[in-house]
């Protein structure tokens, strides 16, 4: 089985998922992990898929043409063997909420601190909420902490960013339990 990463972006409307997955089903693709969401007015799809015979972009032929004709942007990445396997990331899971009056650099400055400290971001979502006059930026990060790092450490590291950007930041670890 060869694996591919497929991304599709286009103006949101009903029927996109159906049109895309019909093509993939008819091509004989197996869908694995995927994430599809509305971002702004755009519907975005990111899919990891496998195919028993296909090896390259060319294998799909003109299969995606109907999507492009429907004004969707399609990009396909051929994965190297093993590229579809999620690595086992050991460590405590930590949720970080950041929100405040919208201004440039919120994502960058928070991510910079986390990157420097080897905190692995596993999920990140941002949303512009509030009103047009008073836009509020909200970011929620899920990250895995390196061994020996506690919730309080992350709080301490982010304190200067909190003051500089005038945003609220809360950090909380989520214990993983086997029941």
């Amino acid at each position, binding site marked *: 089985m060869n694996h591919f990463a497929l991304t599709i972006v286009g103006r949101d409307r009903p029927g996109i998922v159906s049109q895309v997955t019909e093509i993939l089903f008819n091509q004989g693709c197996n869908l694995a992990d995927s994430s599809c*969401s509305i971002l702004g007015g755009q519907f975005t799809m990111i899919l990891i898929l496998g195919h028993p015979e296909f090896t390259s972009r060319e294998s799909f032929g003109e299969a995606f043409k109907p999507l492009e004709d429907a004004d969707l942007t399609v990009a396909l990445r051929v994965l190297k063997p093993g590229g579809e396997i999620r690595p086992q990331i050991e460590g405590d*899971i930590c*949720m970080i909420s950041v929100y405040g009056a919208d201004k440039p650099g919120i994502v960058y400055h928070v991510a910079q601190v986390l990157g420097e400290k080897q905190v692995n971001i596993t*999920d990140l*979502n941002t*949303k512009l*909420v509030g009103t047009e006059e008073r836009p509020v930026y*909200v970011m*929620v990060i*899920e990250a895995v902490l390196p061994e020996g790092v506690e919730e309080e450490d992350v709080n301490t590291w982010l304190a200067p960013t909190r003051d500089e950007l005038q945003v609220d930041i809360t950090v909380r670890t*989520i*214990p*993983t*339990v*086997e*029941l």
Partner: protein
Amino acid sequence: MAVRSILIYPDPILKQVADPVEAVDESAVAVIQDLVDTMVDSGHSVGIAAPQIGVLRRVLVVDVSKSKLGKSNNHGLLEMVNPEIIEKSGSKIMREGCMSIPDYTGNVTRAEHIVVEFTNRNGQLRVIEASGFEAVAIQHELDHLDGLLFLDRVSSLKTDLYRRKSK
């Protein structure tokens, strides 16, 4: 008595509602003991419900006293027949895993404090107040009696954020 094998999803038994136990007789006590033996044998487990060993009766056992998160706040080994939550308050998110769904965990919000009524191994009605990890474990196991898995409770942060905005 016996260590039983644990059913793994998609075994259909895991999605069925278990029947109440009419009387805590020999057969009910045998189920309790099998659950305890199976839980202890699995090493890392803090609880197990009867449907997980293929028995569709409302019986569960929980013991968080040996786990890091539960050792300071617990009732030791709890053996519950026909458990029912009669009060709940607060909320707590934990990333739950389940022996019946290997290799997957998900964030689940549950009540932080619960009052639960049940019949014990000796047929006596008991009411206890549980909180924290013990409360989460009881709620997780009680869900098994109703054919619910933690996958039925998972909510993504994306969805939460989206819902709040669309109000």
